[in-house]
């Protein structure tokens, strides 16, 4: 099912001295139950596109529809809270909250009672393959792989089905990279998530269902993996 559709999306931002066209007429669509990768050189517009997909900014021109509704017309805070989550290369967990509290955070934000949120958070942590001992650990006490799993669990905790990942394996060793990619694939294929991964890593890209190649802000190629 088509979840996101981008039509002629342009994005221009201003720096101190000039205007930069970060995205140029990007047209593509994303379906649930699939994992996509966006690849390209630095400055190709991958992260900017991800930022628009996360509703953190709006296209300068063109349309970006979420479930058929233009992103300009929807409550983007609510969209991020309920539908789309982002995981980052640097994990970005709250350093002063434990793993459990980090994962429970999006639920408490939505008003889920603390106790219930913690229960659900425990299950999500288990789901991403972490043991109970991690629950009370602070991010700095965990390995990179563990932190990224917790970040994915937190993304899942929002209850949405769109997971946007910005270089999720960038700071991980090969073993953890494999685990995380598998986890993301499982989310797409088993849990029916729409997973979009921005990556430099060709190995990761080849694990996804579809590869979108970007160059100088334009989508130059869409490649379906067998």
């Amino acid at each position: 099912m088509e979840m996101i559709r981008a039509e002629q999306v342009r994005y221009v931002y201003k720096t101190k001295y000039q205007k930069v066209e970060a995205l140029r007429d990007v047209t593509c669509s994303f379906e649930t139950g699939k994992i996509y990768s966006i690849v390209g050189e630095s400055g190709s517009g991958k992260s900017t596109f991800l930022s628009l997909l996360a509703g953190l900014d709006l296209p300068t021109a063109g349309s970006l529809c979420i479930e058929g509704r233009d992103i300009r017309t929807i409550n983007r805070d609510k969209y991020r809270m309920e539908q789309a989550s982002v995981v980052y290369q640097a994990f970005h967990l709250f350093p002063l909250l434990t793993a459990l509290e980090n994962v429970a955070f999006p639920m408490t934000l939505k008003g889920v009672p603390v106790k219930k949120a913690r229960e659900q958070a425990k299950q999500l942590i288990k789901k991403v393959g972490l043991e109970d001992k991690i629950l009370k650990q602070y991010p700095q006490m965990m390995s990179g792989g563990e932190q990224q799993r917790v970040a994915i669990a937190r993304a899942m905790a929002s209850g949405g089905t769109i997971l946007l990942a910005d270089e999720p394996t960038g700071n991980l060793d090969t073993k953890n990279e494999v685990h995380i990619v598998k986890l993301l694939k499982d989310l797409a294929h088993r849990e029916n998530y729409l997973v979009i991964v921005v990556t430099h890593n060709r190995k990761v890209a080849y694990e996804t269902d579809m590869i979108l190649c970007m160059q100088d802000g334009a989508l130059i190629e869409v490649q379906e993996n067998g």
Partner: protein
Amino acid sequence: MVRNSIKQMLRMPVRGVSFLLLIAASGMLLTLGAVLWITDNSLVRSYEDTFITIGTVEQKAFSVQQVTRWDAERKDYQLRQKAVYSKLLPVSLLFFEGADYIHEPEKRSYYGSYAPDYTLVSKVNNAELATVVAEISPLEDCIPDESVKVRVNKVFFGSPSLEGTSLWFCNHHTQNPKPLQKEKSYAVVLILHSWAHGAHYEAEAGAGARTLEYIPGETAAIQYGPDGMLMKDSLEREWAEDSPYYEVTDGFYDTDIGQRLLNAAKGLYMYANTQPVTGTNATILLMPFYNGDAYISEGRDIGEEEYKEGKQVCLVPRKFAENNSLTLGSMVHLRLYYTNNKNTAGQFFRPDGSGGGQGLLIDVNGKTLSVFEDSQYTIVGIYDISYGADQGSYSMGGDEIIVPVNSIKNRDARNIIAYGPMMGYTTSFQIPNGSIEKFLAAWEKYGTEELEITFYDMGYSQIKSGLENRKHMSLVLLVVGLLMVSFLLLFYSHLFITNQKKRTAIERCLGMEKKKCRRSLLSGMLILLLAGSTLGCSLGGVLSRHISIDLNQVYYDASYSSVADVKAKDAPKVGSENTVLALVTSLSATVFIILFGVGISIIKIDQNLKLEPMELLSEKRRE
């Protein structure tokens, strides 16, 4: 959300505790400085109102002259020193450029009011014995160059019981007095003088006996013109006469001198029924009121407007009010008939009823002085005199009434019986507190060396300088407190907010609305701010109250211990006001710190929120 925020704040204990303690310390300094500064300002204002600076003026004698006078007892001339003035300087010399007065200089007169209807303390004295107008005859022919015994044939003024008795008489200050003949009668003003002396006395009373003698008084009038010049007596001849006693012959009392003596008796009778009245422009210019020896114990002072407009209101001494059943609002009948422009009433009318004479109180034509001002005054205040405050010139006189000088319409140049130079007890003015140096600098330029000015400020200069120092210290505390608060809020908002911009970005990415992000970041800091500022400001309040009370007490003691009790009621209050002030200030300081902190936090949070979350959270800048 708030819970998570507080949780995160609590998990930075070093930052949290240090912020709490430092904000408490700066809140304490801020409150302490503010309370002390406000207290000091209010104290300075109170002292401005309570303290009074007056100057008294005295004309310096041009030279001292030696004068001689015969002393019959020592059979030799006695040397006396007499101050000589080049001329009597006018008060107008005190009006010069740079002289800033609250109450302009005045040279006060006191007036004699003929008050036969009132009970006066001076009536109970022995004035009637001290000066007598009588006819006397010697018991034998004699020359009164020593004490001789005379019989009192008739008393015109004085105790009637003297009539028919004998007393000792001596023309004490005349070397060769006129002889007295036994069969003749002489009219004379007798003045009680000193111990009787000489061969006659010792032969009769025995050596070592002590009896007072009378000497003959002058029969010439002492009356001054408005220019302060002594007026010429119509009997100038007698004025120079050494032996002012006159043989009574048929028709003597129809003669000028006979009439004069009878009028002198009437004048003395009036004097015995005289009540002193002082005219002024401000009660505080009277030294006894200034130094607290006299104070209004009932009713009120005469108001500025009343003084200015010359309203017929007065202040009376308690004893006079009690002796005459007068209360506030009662009317006092004043009949002024002489003016003394040289002395204070205290020099002649003592509160205990004793006092001295002031000549014959007749004019230069030998007539009795006529009443020149006959008015009714309303009592607005009753004053008391501190026990033991009788200091002669600088004291209030017995029964002395104070009135606005402007209320005495005919005050100028009427029946002036004494006129002298400006003296500290008759001439004074009031200047603003703390302006002595400025005044003296101007006086240095425009004044004259013949006038000596003495200032009294109740120690205001020292206290003001102490308070100014204290004000500066409290201002330093206040500024340091403010700077500390500002610095801490900026520094810690950087730590707690700016440094947490990634946290804000994560929260935004997780869908937290901006207003919730604000609340999230603010809540933790606000709790610490609230706790720290409340703790610090309360401590500051308590501390400042104690310090303030202690210091104020020091100033209070320094300021009022030497001033009469009456001043104490005007003194700045210490205690309860400080508690309220400390409470209000600490509350205000707490609110200020919190609002300031919230303001800075919101600015910083908004700066965080302006940043694009993905940009912050991505490892790379925009791609």
